[in-house]
């Protein structure tokens, strides 16, 4: 996928004809009269185009408004659209090449549905969240092909390139020829309906992410109704990344989704930001909607930017319906077969444990296949392909035994080194999406680094609406609640000593902490909730607890020092350990031996595990706590007031672990963490 922005510096070769068409189109766009007063008398701000003075809005609500209509043949072929080379000319770049007319776009005030009719070759890009339902014909979005009467929920904020809706050839899944279309000249008709996952309100918790739902600056949008949760975007002056995949990907995806040899196991490798996750998602959606597969297994081995879990987790998913949503909005849309909390955002810190967890997940996949499930496996890896990362990939390949390996970007060398000779592994070398680090970076607008997205993922995870037990299996559409800050949410009480204890062990990764300081390390941090069958005598954690604590319930706290088990880290061995999810230790009541936990898991779900004979252990990795989960910015002043007490030893209303002082409480040299700079050049490099 190339998140090519419209002012891409790369000049794609244009045919003379295409160039001329493009030119004409640009002129047309400029010539279009700007219309500051669409309603005549009182000029008002156009709804839906906040902070974005609409250059020329086409009012669709008033039928009296003259609509500019161009014959479809004037639309240049799609390939030329993104590559407008003239970077300095100020023209709105086309985002969708859909040209709105009275006929092809309508809004039903009764059902609140927008109906759009597309011709082949037209593209339609929408920002926001919505349900798209196909009325006739076929459409494609992010690799998924939707046929008549199919629908899909889409979440598309500006953190990611926006998915494109296009007409698609008929899916391979059904062989019956559809009856001829009624609206002869349109190839696909679909309706758009507003949906509310709750993510729209993420700004209530973290104002930085408020903007991700706002349409790009100075864009022409199809005017949406005020209540609509989405905005179709036609043109934008601000570069707006649109999800288009490099041409070389499509044939490979077609090959990989062919049913001749199945189930396949497809292993994706590549450096940072080459589009591994995007390729994986595209392939996943294609497999689910355009092949004989009804379910696909997805093994996510990138703990830094996982697709379906919060950070620091490796996971195996069984997915039955296509997913068109960014990674922070996918919780619940897949069935998590098994997951492991590795505690770090990269395998760098503990490669051995990482590998062990990955191997355990592969075994789990094999078990599913042995049970007779025909599951294609997609394996996504992290972007560490040099040095030890390469060795790690080699070992992962040995463990996964893929049938196909997809390499994105310049990975010939990696292929040569890590792939076994002559074992019949199919190799697919494809170009990277975008140019290296340009992916995801939107010049001139807010940029989100992987670290930002991790914060977003963690915040979204802890603001999920907790599911009632029973439907923890299977998938449902994700749902979030940002109404209240976590500090205002009643926590779960978990007793860790005495007969009523539910927490049987606590570990802290990689650090030999003195037992009496364990809560100094644990309070107000993120931990994983792990479970071990209590009769699993093979499990070293159970053995350790029996040896050390026996039946003595009053030993407090049940701390298991690091390096007890496998010599790699303080974490529990992957085998026989189930990661249920993450929790925040929001407070510790040492007097009563109680922990206060915040977790999106419902108490009934956890209690169900207890009844099933599991022991629960809390494991502290190095998961980062977003400051916005600690601090309610809407309550900012209260925080400062609270801090007043700190000079004299604090009080109940102070806020621990937060430093409100301008420039920092401590200002000496070395008061900051050591931030590594990797982009420094030596003098020698200067004289190139």
């Amino acid at each position, binding site marked *: 996928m190339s998140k090519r922005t419209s002012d891409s510096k790369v000049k794609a070769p244009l045919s003379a004809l295409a160039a001329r068409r493009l030119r004409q189109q640009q002129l047309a766009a400029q010539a279009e009269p700007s219309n500051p007063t669409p309603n005549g008398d009182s000029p008002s701000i156009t709804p839906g185009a906040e902070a974005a003075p609409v250059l020329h809005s086409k009012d669709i609500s008033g039928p009296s408004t003259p609509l500019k209509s161009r014959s479809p043949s004037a639309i240049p072929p799609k390939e030329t659209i993104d590559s407008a080379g003239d970077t300095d000319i100020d023209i709105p770049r086309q985002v969708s090449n859909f040209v709105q007319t009275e006929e092809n776009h309508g809004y039903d005030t009764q059902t609140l549905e927008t109906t759009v009719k597309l011709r082949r070759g037209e593209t339609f890009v929408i920002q926001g969240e919505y349900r798209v339902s196909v009325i006739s014909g076929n459409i494609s979005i992010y690799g998924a092909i939707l046929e008549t009467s199919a629908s899909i929920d889409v979440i598309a904020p500006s953190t990611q390139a926006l998915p494109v809706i296009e007409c698609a050839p008929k899916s391979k899944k059904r062989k019956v020829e559809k009856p001829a279309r009624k609206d002869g000249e349109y190839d696909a008709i679909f309706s758009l309906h507003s949906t509310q996952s709750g993510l729209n309100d993420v700004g209530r918790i973290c104002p930085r992410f408020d903007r991700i739902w706002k349409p790009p600056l100075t864009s022409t949008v199809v005017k949406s109704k005020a209540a609509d949760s989405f905005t179709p975007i036609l043109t934008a002056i601000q570069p707006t990344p649109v999800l288009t995949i490099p041409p070389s990907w499509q044939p490979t995806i077609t090959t990989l989704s062919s049913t001749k040899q199945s189930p396949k196991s497809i292993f994706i490798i590549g450096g940072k930001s080459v589009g591994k996750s995007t390729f994986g998602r595209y392939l996943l959606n294609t497999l689910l909607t355009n092949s004989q597969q009804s379910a696909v297994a997805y093994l996510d081995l990138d703990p830094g930017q996982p697709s379906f879990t919060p950070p620091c987790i490796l996971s195996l998913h069984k997915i039955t319906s296509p997913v068109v949503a960014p990674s922070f909005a996918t919780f619940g849309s897949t069935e998590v077969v098994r997951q492991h909390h590795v505690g770090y955002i990269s395998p760098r810190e503990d490669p051995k444990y990482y590998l062990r967890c990955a191997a355990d997940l592969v075994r789990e996949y094999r078990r599913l296949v042995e049970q007779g499930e025909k599951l294609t496996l997609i394996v996504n890896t992290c972007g560490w392909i040099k040095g030890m990362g390469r060795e790690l990939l080699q070992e992962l390949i040995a463990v996964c035994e893929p049938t196909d390996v997809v390499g994105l970007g310049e990975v010939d060398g990696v292929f040569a080194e890590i792939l076994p000779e002559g074992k019949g592994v199919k190799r697919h070398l494809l170009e990277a999406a975008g140019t290296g680090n340009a992916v995801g970076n939107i010049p001139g607008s807010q940029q989100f680094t992987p670290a930002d997205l991790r914060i977003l993922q963690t915040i979204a995870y802890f603001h999920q609406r907790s599911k009632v037990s029973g439907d923890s299996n299977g998938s449902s559409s994700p749902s979030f609640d940002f109404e209240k800050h976590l500090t205002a949410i009643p926590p779960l009480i978990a007793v860790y000593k005495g007969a009523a204890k539910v927490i049987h062990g606590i570990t802290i990764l990689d650090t030999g902490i003195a037992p009496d300081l364990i809560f100094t390390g644990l309070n107000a941090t993120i931990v994983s909730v792990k479970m071990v069958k209590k009769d699993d005598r093979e499990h070293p954690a159970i053995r350790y607890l029996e040896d050390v604590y026996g039946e003595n319930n009053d030993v407090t706290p049940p701390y298991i020092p690091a390096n007890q088990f496998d010599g790699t880290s303080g974490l529990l061995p992957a085998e026989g350990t189930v990661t249920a999810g993450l929790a925040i230790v929001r407070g510790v009541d040492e007097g009563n031996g109680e922990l206060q936990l915040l977790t999106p898991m419902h108490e009934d779900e956890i209690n169900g595990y207890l009844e099933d004979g599991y022991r629960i252990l809390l494991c502290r990795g190095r998961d980062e706590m977003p400051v916005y989960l600690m601090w309610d910015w809407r309550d900012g002043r209260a925080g400062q007031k609270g801090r007043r007490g700190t000079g004299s030893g604090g009080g109940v209303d102070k806020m621990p672990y937060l430093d409100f002082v301008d420039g*920092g409480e401590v200002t000496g040299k070395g008061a900051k*963490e050591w931030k590594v700079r990797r982009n420094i050049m030596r003098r020698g490099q200067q004289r190139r």
Partner: protein
Amino acid sequence: MLQPPRLTVWSSIDDLKHLKALLYDQNPDYDGRPQALEIIRAWSSRGRLPHAIESTSHLTECLLNDTPNQSELLIRMSYSTAICRFVNGLLDPAQKSHFAVSMYGLAQELGLPASFVDVRHAATHEALPPLGVLRTTCARGLDWLWANYWEKVEVGGVVDAETVGKGREVVDQERVSRVQGLLERWETLKKSGQGRYREASKRKEERGEANICAELEVIFKKSAGMDILLEILVHEHLLVMDDTRSMMSIYKTTESWRPLIQDLDLRVEEFTSGLFNTFLEAMQEVEDTKDENKDEFAESESEYTYQWLEFLIGLVLKGKLAADSASLLDDVVSRCILSRNLWCLRLAEYAIGQSTLLETKYSQACTMAKKQLTAAPKPASNAISKHTNPNLLAALVTNKDSSMDLDQELEDFETKLRSMQAQREQWGLIKKLEATEKTKANLDTSALITNGKRAAKFRRVESDWTPRPMGIA
């Protein structure tokens, strides 16, 4: 943007002061350093440590392990690593340019003796330095950290307590002129930015805007009262008409200020209600002063003020301003109705016309107020009543009687409003009381259950959870 606080590994600054005492206090009976190292280890699992603390712990750890029964090589290697990391961690972040500046230069800037750089160099690229050199360097390192970091811990703490303890500061002339300067910058930025579409300059403009907003936010927040600052904003900028004095120019003006208003609305509590206040007062003022010599200028001034208010109301109605727009709108509309000012009434009418919710609530009162205003051509302008309350419609609907004593009616309206407010408060109190009793009952039963079964279960804290900071049980 409201700057988020920093996350610290220590719970409060006192913990850090305690650590400092453990590390550096010379107590003949008790060596606090091993305990300090334990604490630092526990902290290190929470997040990244400040480099000075990490280095102190590394160097101290070396020092404590430098005992005769350890292998000399091991000691030398640990000293070397600790010193290298100390120096690198200090100097690396100081590399500000794209190209590496010499370590000596950076050390000099930071006030770090050059000998540290020498030792680092030797330990990395040459033979491991002899133990004597390493020991001295380590001790000097700890001294340097004391002088440059730890000593500031106390000072920082004191300064912190002082500045924060003072609370919000009085608005002084300096602050006023800073606000004036910032607002002027905004204006020129917007003027120069018009018709500029090149991405680079756009970005620059956006950055400039963000900076101005951030600075204003800080000033607004720190100031004891926003009134003066809002008056500067409104009277010296927002209400300054273009030379052309054409009404059309207001659209350009409102648009150019909109980002600033929205930004401050988001970040500064009560900014928007304050802004409305200032505008409404300005409106009243114009009306009051003009009265006798109804000149054209005053008229257009009123019109201009009105347009601003209408624009703001529009923003609120569209949900582009003010989180609790409902109460704000109620406040503004009811104030307008009670104002006995034609322009304000017009504004109320506008708002009512835009929202059915407001219409049901206020149209009656509005019509009445208008009648009264037209009936008594020279009304004494009342001070705009400050606190009003919605839900007054019911009272008015019944008062259909169109007697000429409209004055009386409006007064009734006001009293009803007040009593309604009082009722509401009362109701809230009762609700609260009920809730606490309910939770008490809940607690009793839940205690019973847990006592009876001693069930080992996770349970949700019962309903009366008062929000409290993370880390406090």
